[in-house]
């Protein structure tokens, strides 16, 4: 498999959100003791109204000595999360959980935040809203101070509505629906937003191909989110294409869809890698040699196909498991060593989310392990939206604005060309 997973990492000269501030140094997340922040423009560093004027008196603006209702007994900073750990979508939740746990272990091995360690716990939510809020309650009452939210969009919206009541900051690794970060001022994300990816894909495909097809999963918010944006953009560009859909809960056989798209040059797949692997294999048996083009959910597809697949697969992703980047190489080695499987996009996003929290807490100057979640929430929001806050993670260099969206540069990975 490895032999044909060659990479062309195109730096696309557009960033997902306008206003990418390219200033500031970057830091190596594997060395957590160093400061995440460059000496930027101290005066106008922070955009948030609550925020302090500069880093030096950040401590003064937030009273970290305030103890929360449930956090008085904390001896470690408690990062909580919910995600599907059982059921149909459990592989995604487990990946995030493992990636995040790896990051926490690394930070703790390096001494934690000023000597205070971190604790990470993920509750199972089976991708349902009700279980996500139950999980949230359990975490909050166990002393959760900060969070990486939920893995899937539907449950993360539920999580966000609870977190908003309490002022708990969270940065979700993978819940990409727009409604998630709209639901709370304390909601941030590591992944790209769904609409951005759809628009980008529409532009890419319409510029390079004549006959375009698309297959989306009508039961999945991620897939429909990207697809709706794609559809709108294609209509705007006045490009026609063939539309096919499936329902991942009920149909795993893609022969009909591929039959309909047999003559296409390119097929857009705004879906996850499990189904994409099956689609690639169906393409082989149907004799369809179209290029398969996907979004970040396709990352991990290399593990789902074998040498019989001859189609070229391209996907927009901020993370590439075969990257030469030192950070990624180390992460992949550590992850494979610990869990026995190669990491996917979800694991990398989980890892980055933890480091985003860590670095933001470092920047905010948090110094009390029993700090109340709402105080920490305000401080971290101020820190993470600061103009000079740049995280160099596995998924690229990231900055955040007050909407909670993440700005990072996507690359296009190509398999088997």
């Amino acid at each position: 498999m490895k032999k044909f997973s060659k990479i062309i990492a195109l730096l696309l000269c557009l960033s997902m959100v306008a206003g990418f501030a390219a200033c500031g140094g970057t830091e190596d997340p594997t060395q957590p003791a160093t400061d995440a922040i460059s000496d930027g423009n101290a005066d106008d560093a922070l955009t948030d109204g609550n925020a302090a004027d500069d880093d030096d008196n950040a401590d003064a603006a937030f009273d970290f000595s305030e103890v929360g209702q449930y956090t008085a007994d904390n001896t470690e900073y408690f990062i909580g999360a919910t995600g599907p750990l059982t059921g149909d979508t459990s592989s995604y939740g487990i990946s995030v959980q493992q990636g995040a746990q790896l990051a926490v272990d690394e930070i703790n091995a390096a001494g934690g935040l000023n000597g205070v360690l971190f604790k990470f716990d993920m509750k199972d939510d089976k991708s349902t809203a009700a279980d996500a809020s139950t999980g949230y309650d359990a975490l909050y009452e166990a002393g959760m101070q900060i969070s990486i939210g939920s893995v899937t969009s539907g449950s993360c919206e539920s999580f966000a509505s609870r977190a908003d009541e309490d002022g708990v900051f969270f940065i979700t690794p993978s819940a990409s629906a727009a409604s998630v970060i709209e639901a709370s001022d304390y909601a941030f994300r590591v992944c790209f937003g769904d609409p951005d990816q759809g628009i980008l894909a529409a532009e890419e495909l319409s510029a390079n191909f004549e006959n375009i097809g698309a297959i989306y999963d009508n039961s999945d918010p991620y897939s429909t989110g990207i697809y709706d944006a794609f559809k709108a953009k294609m209509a705007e560009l006045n490009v026609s294409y063939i539309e096919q859909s499936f329902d991942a809960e009920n149909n795993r056989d893609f022969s009909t869809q591929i039959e309909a798209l047999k003559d296409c040059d390119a097929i857009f797949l705004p879906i996850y890698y499990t189904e994409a692997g099956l689609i690639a294999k169906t393409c082989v048996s149907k004799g369809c040699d179209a290029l398969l083009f996907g979004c970040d959910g396709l990352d991990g597809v290399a593990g789902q196909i074998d040498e019989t697949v001859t189609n070229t697969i391209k996907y927009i992703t901020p993370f590439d498991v075969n990257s030469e980047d030192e950070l990624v190489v180390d992460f992949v080695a550590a992850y494979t060593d610990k869990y026995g499987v190669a990491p996917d996009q979800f694991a990398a996003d989980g890892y980055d989310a933890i480091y985003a929290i860590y670095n933001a807490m470092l920047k905010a100057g948090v110094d009390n392990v029993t700090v109340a979640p709402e105080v920490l929430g305000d401080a971290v929001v101020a820190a993470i939206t600061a103009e000079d806050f740049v995280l160099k993670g596995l998924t690229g260099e990231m900055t955040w604005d007050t909407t909670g969206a993440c700005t990072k540069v996507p690359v296009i990975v190509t398999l088997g060309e």
Partner: protein
Amino acid sequence: MAKLKKIKISDYFCYIMVAAVMLVSFVVAQTGNLPRSYSNLLVQIAYSIILAVSLNLVVGFLGELSLGHAGFMCVGAYVGSYIAMQLAEVIDNKLIVLLLSMIIGGLLAAFFGFLVGLPALRLKGDYLAIVTLAFGEIVRTIFKNMSVFGKAMGLSTQAIKYDTRKDTSLYLVSFITVLVVLFFVQNLIRSKHGRAITAIRDNEIAAKAMGINVTFYKLFVFVIAAFFAGMAGVIYGHYTTPVLYSFFSYNYSIEILVMVVLGGMASINGSIIAAALITFVNFQLQSHLSGDQAALKYLIYALILIVLVIFNNAPKLAPIKDKFSPKTLLVKAKGHRHPGEIRSDTGDWRVIPSKIKMDEVLSVDLQQNTEFTPDKPQKGGK
């Protein structure tokens, strides 16, 4: 049977139980010591009880297997919450909005209950079960594809959701709903209509011959059960956001069925206890088994389920259980009770004697003061 109307505590046990839980939690909440997770757990327990009791009407009392109860809840949750959000813009009072939407959501679910009841007139047993399952899946698929209800993203009910930090009253409303449902169901079952329903279960043809309107009662039970399930759905919509189609899969219908079967068919008290217990066990398992251990959750749940069901139902265990049941022990302590003694619960609505038991009762009456051994049915010899 000294008095014509004898008040028995066991008949009112369910009210007492539910009211006590409500009162205790209300007092604790007033002192500010009720953790939010518990007030939310109470809401979950409340809608589970409504679902279990209403499904028991269909499965336990009417005797038809239904695997689509979550479908009715789905209708209530989606439509009821949607209507509540529209109403919330006009009416300022949250409680009135909730009650109104509960009635409207319930009525719509009841309409679907009527639709599902129609095939129930023609189909029996497992064929009906698959039709109800099919209905649940159809409803889910349709809601999933309607853009009014947010498609795959689900219907965001943020606008009407109870902010559980500031306002914990949702569990109170839910428990009062439970009491109302219980009041209705208990009185229905004890009325002549209730006896007609159980008669249909025991022998449809005989019931027909007695002049019972089977068509009416079958539809009636389905409509009522769907109405309550729809109300539970509206509570669910106010409790969490978003209302997402994936929750209402046949797996959830089966979970409600598990509550009914574990609690005992045609036992309202049993349904209440089982619904509360299963919700609580799930809550505890979810809270305690996180991260790497989450996969154990279903393992433990499955084992509990298998062991409990086998313990409750295995015919071979019945004599052992009988020997150590509190009733037998009580009788032992009091001394031997004569089998011919007329007990106060004979002919009670809850004790529906099977054919064999009827034989026993009759033969005992005929030959008093003699050693009596009823004919044991041969294994599988029914």
